[in-house]
């Protein structure tokens, strides 16, 4: 190599080294959110509040929001496959219940391992409420920062309950039979309607387990796992739950069977509620703050007067989990870091920035929710305040177990088999038992029958 070439090469290398730090870092952030579509509030918040403020504070970093419009399960699928090959967004929205299976699979790493010691020094940890800390934790390590938690209830259409002669403002069922009776009364005045929506089937994914199966099962005094950490694979509670599904979807047609079986069923169930076809819908507060909010696809006209809510009753009073009369269950979402991110420091900077009080307050202004931080005020929102005060003391959480996700898929199959009329509750439970034993091994299951 001639001297001239050599010096050219050196100067090029030198230039790259000099220029290197000044070159903007690109960060990708993904959520199942689309401006004007699903979870529009989250998308607007990131697009209009987080990114401009973060880029202004960090001129070297450019943030790009990927708006994922598919189903939850499809995003999980994409993240799992991306993370396993070292690809994927730097920061992504994540449902806390998936953390154990991702961690055990090596697809998520503790935040302080990804981004270093500054994670532990973040001031925000102290501001998290005790309950919400666990949402993005596994075996004592943080894998993400929780955004907030939720509670589940029966959303009601007061206008339609009134048509059936039920005083919607005071309606509070105390048993499954009360709910069914209300639905029967509505079915009588509106024969073409499907009053109840209790999620079932494979297509809705975790929404079936969380908003449907769990809410019924807890009302029988049972959970998916017993106190010793063994999966319950045969029990009277499972049978009662499946029989409730059968009553609603097969025997009395009180629910829209098609919406449980079709691929876009969850959206159909939302549309049913908007159109008054369904008037008793089991969902989280998410349904109120996001799905039916003004301007969204499933916005309910005049919702402050026509929408109400009731607590989910146990099968009969006192029969619920821990002897409760009413039951509910909470989950939590947040954002996690991709362990293979090229820019861990910058990704952490974005993640923590999003969770500072300023940004959280901006989110509250768009979409009030039950936040993880104790220093964030919930804007005046009677629904959320009332619901969280009533239901948080009653709530339950899903098992923090690496196999939960797979077992949950079997639960979805079991409900679909019953709702489609293909199997009887007994047959479906036998199939569930065999499948779960296949997943976790017989020693980790228990049969209560």
């Amino acid at each position, binding site marked *: 190599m001639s001297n001239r070439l050599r010096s050219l090469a050196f100067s090029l290398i030198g230039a790259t080294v000099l220029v290197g730090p000044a070159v903007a870092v690109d960060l990708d952030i993904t959520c199942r959110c689309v401006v004007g579509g699903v979870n529009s509030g989250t998308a607007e918040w990131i697009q209009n509040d987080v990114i401009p403020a973060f880029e202004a504070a960090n001129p070297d970093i450019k943030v790009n929001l990927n708006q994922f419009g598919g189903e939850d399960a499809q995003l999980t699928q994409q993240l*799992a496959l991306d993370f396993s090959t070292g690809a994927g967004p730097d920061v992504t929205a994540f449902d806390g219940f998936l953390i154990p299976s*991702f961690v055990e*699979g090596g697809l998520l790493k503790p935040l302080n391992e990804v981004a270093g010691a500054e994670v532990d020094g973040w001031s925000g940890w102290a501001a998290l409420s005790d309950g919400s800390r666990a949402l993005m934790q596994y075996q004592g390590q943080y894998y993400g920062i929780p955004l907030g938690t939720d509670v589940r209830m029966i959303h009601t259409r007061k206008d339609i309950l009134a048509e059936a002669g039920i005083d919607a403002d005071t309606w509070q069922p105390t048993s499954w039979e009360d709910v069914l009776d209300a639905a029967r009364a509505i079915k009588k005045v509106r024969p073409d309607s499907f009053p109840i929506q209790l999620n079932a089937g494979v297509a809705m994914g975790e929404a079936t387990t969380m908003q449907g199966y769990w809410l019924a099962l807890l009302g029988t005094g049972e959970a998916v796992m017993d106190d010793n950490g063994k999966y319950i694979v045969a029990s009277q509670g499972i049978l009662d739950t499946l029989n409730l599904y059968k009553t609603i979807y097969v025997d009395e047609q009180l629910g829209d069977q098609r919406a449980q079986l079709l*691929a876009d069923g969850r959206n159909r169930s939302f549309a049913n509620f908007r159109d008054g076809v369904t008037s008793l819908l089991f969902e989280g507060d998410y349904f109120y703050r996001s799905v039916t909010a003004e301007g969204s696809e499933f916005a309910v006209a005049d919702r402050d007067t026509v929408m109400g809510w009731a607590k989910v009753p146990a099968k009969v009073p006192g029969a619920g989990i821990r002897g409760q009369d009413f039951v509910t269950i909470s989950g939590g979402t947040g954002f996690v870091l991709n362990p293979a991110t090229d820019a861990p420091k910058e990704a952490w900077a974005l993640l923590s920035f999003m969770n500072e009080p300023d940004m959280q307050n901006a989110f509250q202004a768009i979409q009030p929710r039950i936040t993880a931080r104790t220093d964030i005020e919930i804007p005046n929102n009677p629904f959320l305040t009332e619901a969280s005060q009533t239901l948080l003391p009653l709530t339950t959480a899903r098992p923090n177990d690496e196999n939960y996700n797979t077992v949950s898929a079997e639960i979805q199959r079991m409900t679909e088999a019953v709702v489609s009329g*293909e199997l009887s509750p007994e047959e479906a439970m036998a199939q569930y038992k065999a499948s779960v034993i296949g997943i976790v091994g017989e020693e980790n299951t228990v049969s209560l029958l």
Partner: protein
Amino acid sequence: MTTTQIETKPKRKVRNFALLSNKAGAAFLTPAGLLVSVFVIVPFFWVIFVSFTNRTLLGKTALNPEFVGLANYFTLFDPSNFLQRGQFGFSLILTTQFVLASALFGQALLGLLLAWLIQTVPPWVKRITETFVIAAWILPEVVIGFAWFAFLDRDQGTLNAMLTSVGLPKGDFLLEQPFWVIVVFNTWRGAAFSMMLFGSAFSSIPPSYFQAADVAGASSWQKFRDIGLPLIRGHIVTDLILITMWTFNTFTPFLLTNGGPSYRTELVSIYNYRVAFNDFQFGKGAAVGVIMMLINLAFALVYLSLGRKKKG
């Protein structure tokens, strides 16, 4: 048999005319050979290896898969639930029915019928028919998947709009008759190949045969049965094997039904996808893949041996 083999053997030893020396030939083959081994042969053996483990994408077995021998295969062929919906046996039988109904009866028969009918029509009718049939064949899968989905939808579907406009009741095709939907769909989708293959086979028959038959006063059916069919028998066998293989492996019905409702349209390819990429059970998914490869291999061997016989 043995005598003919002995006779043909010496012939093969005759040196073929070569464009390149052996060395140059090998040099040119190496890059392609490397690519094929990296992208085809290595994954092939990798899949077989994975099928003997309990590897998953999520959970403990993702990082520390264990060797489980034939356990995945035993699970697939577990007699206690083999024929249950959503299990391998059900998928396999469903796929067999699907191949019989949509490939052998649907595509081949429809293709044969179309090919025969357009032999005698005016050229412009022939061209228009061919254009439409081939369009169904060459359009991208996702496009036609969604087009059919929209066509069959209960509430806003075109088909139901047409039915109601003539006073017929609406149908909920995708939920109530999912199997027949995918059969009709696949027939529609693939008939073009059979039509083209049979069409060119028919046109290779000397016209004088048909003219002679005309003089003798033969009907169209008689000409078809006694002249057309016997002369294209070889093409029919080729066609049947090819479309059987394609239909066996097809994934497009997933776009219409997602394999549902309740696994009623879960063909083995869709089953394989669900196990491997929805449930993330790579080991079991690989085992399904290996079985599918073996089935394909059997078809391919039949196809190749038929080809060899023809040459002999």
